[in-house]
């Protein structure tokens, strides 16, 4: 299994450690707060009619649920139509398999230079590392992705990967890594610098890799949503285009695309529309003068079929990756994207990552939520994220009985957070609360001796002021009043 490591800047061991470091960094908190506030406002202003928003969300949910309700059939239809259109389809169960497929295509072409448009699934499989280890040059072309690649970091947001960096950070980075570049924190200058470097990369690249926003089964079409044009460059200039996506990205009908596209751009960045909507249905045909001669699609499972097997957890796969849940999450805003230690941060990351990585590596994530419900409220396809978080909390402490016959765990690594100490504590608690005598005895003790409790009862009391038991219990006071 691929181990998703945290970025170099936050490469501390545990989730607790990383979040502690993050909340103690006032600069980081300020940056994320400002950025998220901006995105929240932008989204609000672009959905000016609540009636439209709610109806569109219902439709979006319905379209995604419909696609999932016949996923195997649609994947086969997609495969057939893509194949008829001349696009080669590959299937991968694991990140290793996906990378091997991509590498094999590159090798067959004797290629050495890959340019990548933005793709979270390629991050998920850590394609760059895999290819670079095999001496393939692989350059990110989305401005944000390019910036963090220079700094050897991971994205801190699925839509805006370099949101944690300031213009000054980028100016320093460009000066250090791009020969002949002076320090200049003007954003236009920085973008033009990136443009110049990446133009050369596009020009020379043998292979273009991209993600997919929607794969249309009806027509065999891959849809890409973007503003920069790097997606179009990566899928048009090189001679070979390899798209990689998760098996859940398929939609049934072409007419499913406009409502989802509208929900995506408005929820993500508060844009009515992005600069480019790019629909690819075949490689270069006879008589056409440009475009790749080969187009491939890699369909990746990587734990998605595990989520699919459970009616409630299946909803996770409705996601269209807009990032609205992330933008509205009070936890994400305070700790930033790297603290999660997973490719997909924030609420969606918390419910998706356990399937991709297993519960052992993600056991703390479902608990890292205040359950305020903002994520579920803004989700354009109405994924009940808080309910799924609760469910995953339960699954994380359900002991794994995989040794027993007939037992099939819902999740890989289920019960990873199980602790016999915690378990017996809650059992005792339940016992006390279901027995009036025991309850009376314990509250007697608490009211008399509660003040003797240690002030810093760890770990709960580490960051909290402990409550002081009252001198008289409510029962006692009611009794006295009645007397």
């Amino acid at each position, binding site marked *: 299994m691929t181990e998703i490591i945290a970025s170099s800047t936050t490469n501390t061991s545990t989730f607790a450690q990383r979040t502690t470091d993050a909340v103690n960094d006032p600069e980081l908190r300020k940056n994320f707060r400002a950025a998220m506030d901006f*995105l929240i406002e932008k989204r609000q202003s672009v959905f000016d009619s609540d009636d439209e928003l709610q109806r569109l969300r219902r439709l979006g949910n319905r379209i995604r649920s*419909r696609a999932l309700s016949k996923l195997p059939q649609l994947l086969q239809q997609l495969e057939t139509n893509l194949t008829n259109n001349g696009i080669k389809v590959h299937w991968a169960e694991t990140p290793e398999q996906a990378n091997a497929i991509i590498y094999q295509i590159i090798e067959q072409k004797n290629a050495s230079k890959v340019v990548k448009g933005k793709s979270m699934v390629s991050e998920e499989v850590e394609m760059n590392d895999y290819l670079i280890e095999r001496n393939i040059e692989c350059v990110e072309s989305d401005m944000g992705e390019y910036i963090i690649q220079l700094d050897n970091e991971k994205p801190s947001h699925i839509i805006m990967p370099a949101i944690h960096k300031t213009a000054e950070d*980028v100016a320093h980075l460009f000066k250090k890594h791009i020969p002949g570049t002076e320090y200049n924190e003007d954003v236009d200058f920085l973008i033009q610098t990136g443009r110049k470097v990446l*133009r050369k990369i596009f020009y020379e690249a043998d292979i273009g890799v991209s993600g997919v926003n929607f794969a249309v089964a009806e027509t065999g079409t891959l849809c890409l949503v973007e503003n920069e044009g790097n997606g*179009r460059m990566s899928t048009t200039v090189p001679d070979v285009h390899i798209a990689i996506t998760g098996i859940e990205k398929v939609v049934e009908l072409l007419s499913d695309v406009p*409502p989802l596209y509208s929900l995506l751009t408005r929820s993500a960045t508060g844009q009515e529309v992005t600069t480019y*909507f790019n629909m690819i249905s075949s490689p270069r045909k006879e008589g056409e*003068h440009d475009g790749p001669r080969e187009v491939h699609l890699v369909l990746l499972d990587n734990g998605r079929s595990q989520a699919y097997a459970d009616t409630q957890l*299946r909803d996770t796969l409705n996601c269209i990756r807009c990032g609205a849940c992330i933008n509205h999450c009070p936890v994400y805003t305070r700790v930033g994207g790297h603290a999660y230690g997973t490719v997909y941060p924030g609420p969606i990351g918390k419910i998706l990552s356990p399937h991709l990585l297993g519960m052992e590596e993600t056991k703390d994530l479902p608990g890292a939520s205040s359950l305020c419900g903002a994520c579920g409220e803004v989700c354009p396809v109405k994924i009940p994220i808080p309910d799924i978080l609760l469910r995953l909390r339960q699954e994380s402490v359900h002991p794994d009985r995989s040794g027993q016959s007939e037992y099939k765990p819902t999740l890989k690594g289920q019960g990873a957070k199980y602790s016999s100490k915690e378990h017996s504590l809650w059992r005792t608690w339940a016992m006390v609360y279901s027995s009036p005598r025991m309850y009376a005895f314990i509250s007697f003790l608490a009211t008399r001796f509660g003040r003797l409790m240690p002030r810093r009862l760890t770990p709960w009391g580490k960051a909290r002021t402990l409550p002081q038991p009252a001198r008289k219990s409510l029962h006692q006071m009611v009794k006295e009043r009645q007397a």
Partner: protein
Amino acid sequence: MSIRDQILGRLDAALKNTNCQPLYAEHEDRSVVTEYYQYTPEQRVERLTKMMQASHSEVHQVSEKNWPAKLLDLMQAKQLNNLVIGDNTPHGQQLTNHWKEFDETPDLKSCQRDIEQWKDELFHNTDAALTGSRGGIAATGSIIVWPTPEEPRLISLVPPVHFILLRASTIHNSFAEVMALEKWQQGLPTNALLISGPSKTADIQLTLAYGAHGPRELIVLIVNDMETR
């Protein structure tokens, strides 16, 4: 069993085990995608213009006759020295013929050749491109471009300035509407695009910057063909 069959097998089993019934599109209320975006033909031009300007595009109203002259003016004002055109297209021919009458016009380049033959020229020595369009979308201020052998994919992307001809009569209300009306599901080209402005990014500190990887300028010439239709 192949990896494909294993994945599909697991998905099939999951559907069976959870007793999941397929849902059907016929039962969905789709009115929301079109209801909010109903305009008269004049409103469509207005809305598209407003939306495109908001996304930093330049929009000009032109006539069937005068657009080549307007384009020449714009090229000269912007000090652009050459222009790629699809010289086989009706508008490419109209432009060529019109510009012949002038002594000093920017160079016209043809894109009727495989990219391999002129990639260097396109990337390093091309100032602007002109393309036609299939239509427009008023709701979002978008232009529908289906690249053809006459006007290939890269000419609307690589040059720093993109001029685009849009006939007012081809502007539709919404993406959903035009797709349904023209029955796109019956056959899409190699590449179909919506273009809604110049290339841009807000990846550094959420500050908008134009000309990220594609054209820095998008100039839309809306040809008023409403009376003649």
